[in-house]
Every structure is written in C-alpha cells, then in structure tokens.
C-alpha cells in the first residue's frame, strides 16, 4: 500500500493543474488559487452519488456533473411499473438537490475525453477541464449482438432495461394482450446490469398474469444455465405461480440467436418462439463514452484499480457503477452507490496528497417475487489481487425456508432501501 499510494500521489501532482498543487501547500495558498476541479460524467446512482459525496466531504472542491437529461429515471422497482403495481413517476428524480448542494450541473452529453489535456468534450462543441474525471455512464444495449435486434426492433420487442419509455411500452403490451397469450422474456449471459432483474421481472409479470390473465404463461429463455437467487426464485414460482413460468436454460436451447420483430419471433439454438409479448434483454456494454475515452477493454467494460477506481488504461480517469469491471460486485444500484462513495474518498485523497485507505464495500440486491414477498442477496467486498473480491463467510442469500412474515419484512425493507438511497443521492 505505501508504495502504491506514493506513486499515485506523485503521479497526480505531476499531471495536475495548479489548483491541486496549491492544496498540498496548505490552506493559505488555497485562498489565492482556484480549487481543484472534478468532472463527473453520468448522473445515475454512481455518478450523482459520487459528485454528492465529494462535495459533502470537501465543499471547497469544484464539482461538475455532466448529464444531458433533466430528470433521472431509476431502474430499481421499475419491474413493478411493468407489472402495473407502481407508476413511473415514482421512479423519477430531479437534480435540484445536487445543485443546492453546490454541484454545477452541465446539461450536455460528453462525447470524448482528451486525457492528456484533461478535458471532456461536450455535445455543444465546448470542452470542460478537470483535474480528475469520474466516468459513470451506465450501460448501453448491444444492438449488434443478436441479428434482427436493433434500436428499431426494440420498439416492437422492448428490452425495458433502461427505465422510462421502454418500461411503459412493455407494460402497455402486457395490458393489450388477451388472456391466454404467451409472453417471452429473454435474459442475456453474464455480465449484465442487475443479475436478479430478469427473474424479478418474470415473477412480477407472472403476478400480473395470475391476477388479470390467468390462462396466459411466460417463457423465460436464458443464455445461462444458472442465475442469481435461483433456488429462492424457483421455490417461490412453484408456490405462487405454479405452471405459469417455464425457464429454458442455455443447455435446453435458451440462447436467442435471431430476432424477427415483424412477427415477434425469437429463434434459439433449438427452435423458435412466437409470442404476443416479447421482452428481449440483449447483451450490454459500458455506455459508449467509455469506449470513446479509451477506458473500456475488449469486453466492452472498464478495468479499474479496486482501491481508487482509477482506470487501469487511462490515468486520471475513474470509472464506477455498471460500466466498471468490479470483480465480484454485481452491476447494481446498491453497488454503484457504494463504489461512488469509496471512489469519492480516493479522489479526495489523491487531490489532497493524502494516503489511500483500503475500502470495504457492500452490495445488497433485493428482489420482489410478489408485492409482499421479498428476497435478497448480499455481499461484502475488499480489494484482493487487483479486483474486488468477496469476503469469505459474509454475504449470501435470504434463507430458503422462511415464514411469509420474513418475506414480507424483506419486501418492506426493499422499499425502505430505495427511499434511503434515492434520498441520499437526489434528496
């Protein structure tokens, strides 16, 4: 650790503008010099939380948040919107809280990063200088991965894997379907955003079908042979939705090889499935600015140092949230928020020339199997061997045999978590 941090500190001072150097000279110099500037690209759970935390911990810092959308639409609980249990407005958050906290909102998309010059190029042609940059662009759907499935096809066969118009489109299609119709949901191979998400969605769609269209069924085509919280989900499906959900694993032909939006048909290695509603969740990659900035590797995701979240490919640029390769941590809003706070501490330490602390991170993904039936998977993580690794003996899933009251408590805690985290980030 000491060697590393010294190197990191020297590196950061070497490449930095006067502001950070002034900081290390002590407070009097600060009065005369401009404060260090940190730019954050992406105002989701990761980026907004990181901007907020940096400003909270050092109000003298100049923090700029680059985000083109006026409002953020959160994905957690958007499966409840799909199933008609919640309105989309409950998912929407503004950036007023961040502005009030002294963060400068830059309502633009970032197009490129000039890492040598320490500048972000924006959509309107201007550039934003920084001393350190945090990239948190989330994911992009890979519209080149499944023949026939491009952006236009998503209008007929929604992915609904970014909350907003796609979420409502899928909900309307379910509402328009007649009783007895077939819904096909396709889940991608790992890694992808929110590993338990497709199974939570299958559960809540089954809940909708059971209450509104009981002769219908759902086929879940999976490009994997195993999935997150599988035993808990399968036990709950057998108990709550007997015969309604058919899970087709990779080995049994679950991988989709082609899509035909005009007939709403998915072709797999073993045959084809025509359905009234097709929810195709395609493979993903880090949001495209990651590639433009040179921080994504050949997998499409961004390798990082597990202590600082600094890109291992481009110095001075940190990557957090879904876009990052975070070892054992899944791509979740919870993880994005935890990484944001750890990264904020590291950026402040690097700018201030202080030693780096080895972080501990937590993740917990709650899933609703029914409105009053919650299950969770948790993990605690530490840097190890250049990655974030599970701390042995901690974490795991909810117990397999638990009374309904326990499941109901976890469903209530899931909602409480969402209120807490969105309050912390956007409140």
């Amino acid at each position, binding site marked *: 650790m000491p060697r590393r941090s010294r190197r990191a500190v020297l590196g950061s001072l070497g490449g930095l503008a006067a502001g950070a150097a002034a900081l290390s000279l002590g407070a009097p110099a600060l009065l005369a010099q401009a404060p260090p500037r940190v730019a954050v690209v992406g105002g989701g759970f990761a980026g907004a939380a990181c901007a*907020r935390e940096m400003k909270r911990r050092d109000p003298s810092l100049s923090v700029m948040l680059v985000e083109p959308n006026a409002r953020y639409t959160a994905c957690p609980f958007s499966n409840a919107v799909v199933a008609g249990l919640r309105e989309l407005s409950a998912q929407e958050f503004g950036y007023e809280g961040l502005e009030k906290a002294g963060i400068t909102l830059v309502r633009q998309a970032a197009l490129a990063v000039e890492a040598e010059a320490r500048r972000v190029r924006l959509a309107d042609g201007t550039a934003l200088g920084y001393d350190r940059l945090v990239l948190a662009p989330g994911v992009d759907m890979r519209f080149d991965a499944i023949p026939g499935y491009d952006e236009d096809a998503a209008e007929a066969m929604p992915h609904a894997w970014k909350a907003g118009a796609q979420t409502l489109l899928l909900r309307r299609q379910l509402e328009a379907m007649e009783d007895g119709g077939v819904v096909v949901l396709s889940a991608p191979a790992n890694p992808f955003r929110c590993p338990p998400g497709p199974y939570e969605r299958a559960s809540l769609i089954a809940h909708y079908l059971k209450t509104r269209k009981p002769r219908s069924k759902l086929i879940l085509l999976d490009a994997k042979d195993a999935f997150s919280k599988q035993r808990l989900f399968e036990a709950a499906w057998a108990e709550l939705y007997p015969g309604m959900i058919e899970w087709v694993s990779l080995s049994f032909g679950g991988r989709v090889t082609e899509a035909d939006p005009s007939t709403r048909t998915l072709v797999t290695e073993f045959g084809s499935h025509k359905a009234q509603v097709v929810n195709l969740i395609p493979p993903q990659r880090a949001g495209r600015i990651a590639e433009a900035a040179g921080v994504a590797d050949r997998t499409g995701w961004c390798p990082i140092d597990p202590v600082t979240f600094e890109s291992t490919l481009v110095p001075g640029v940190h990557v957090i949230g879904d876009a990052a390769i975070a070892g054992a941590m899944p791509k979740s809003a919870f993880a994005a928020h935890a990484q944001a706070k750890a990264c904020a*501490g590291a950026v402040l330490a690097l700018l201030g020339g202080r030693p780096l*602390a080895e*972080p501990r*991170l937590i993740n917990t993904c709650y899933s609703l199997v029914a409105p009053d039936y919650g299950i969770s998977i948790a993990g605690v993580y530490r840097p190890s061997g250049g990655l974030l690794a599970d701390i042995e003996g*901690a974490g795991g899933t909810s117990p397999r045999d638990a009374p309904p009251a326990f499941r109901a*408590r976890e469903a209530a805690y899931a909602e*409480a978590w969402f209120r807490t985290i969105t309050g912390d980030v956007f409140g």
Partner: protein
Amino acid sequence: MTGGPTPLRLALALLGLFPAAAMAADLPSSDPPPGASACSGCHAPAASDGGMAPLDGRPAEDIVASMRGFRSGTLEATVMDRIAKGFTDEETRAIADWYAARGGRDAAAKP
C-alpha cells in the same frame, strides 16, 4: 481539507467563499472509515416509517453490540447477519465510533 466544520472552513464560509446553501444542505463530515459509507445505502440519517434505524448519533457501544449479536446469531436479522460477518471487531469499532460522532445533523450544524 477534510474533517468537520474546521475553523478554517467556517472562516471561509463567513468570508463567503463557501456558498452558504452548500453548508446547510450538505454538511461536511470527517473521512468515514472503510465500510462506513456503504451502510448509508440502507441506514438513512433520519428515521422513517418502516425503514432501517438511523445510525447517526447512536452510542458506539450499541452499534458494536448489535453487530456482534448479528454476527453470532443472538440477534434476529433479515440481512444484518450476512453483512456483519464481513467486518472484524476492529473495523466495526471504527465504523461505530464514526457514526456515534456524527451525533445527528442538526447538532453538527451549529458552530
């Protein structure tokens, strides 16, 4: 430039170099020890209906004792047993001290 509302920071605020709004909306706090900020994903600074209990301003001894209870299984939990097992007694102590010192945001707001 970390730490709580240090004399320097307060002086700067009086000089108008820190926007007053920023001071009010988001109080600066000392560097959290490893793991502490991850608790804030679930534990908000203030109590809410049906939510997880706030940790800010809680006696450190309480937090340490609860974490031990969650780890050993003497306290009932839906999720804290799985989380508490990821922290040593020493790490837990540092986290507990930090939360205890936060003492509620209103108290900290008064210089």
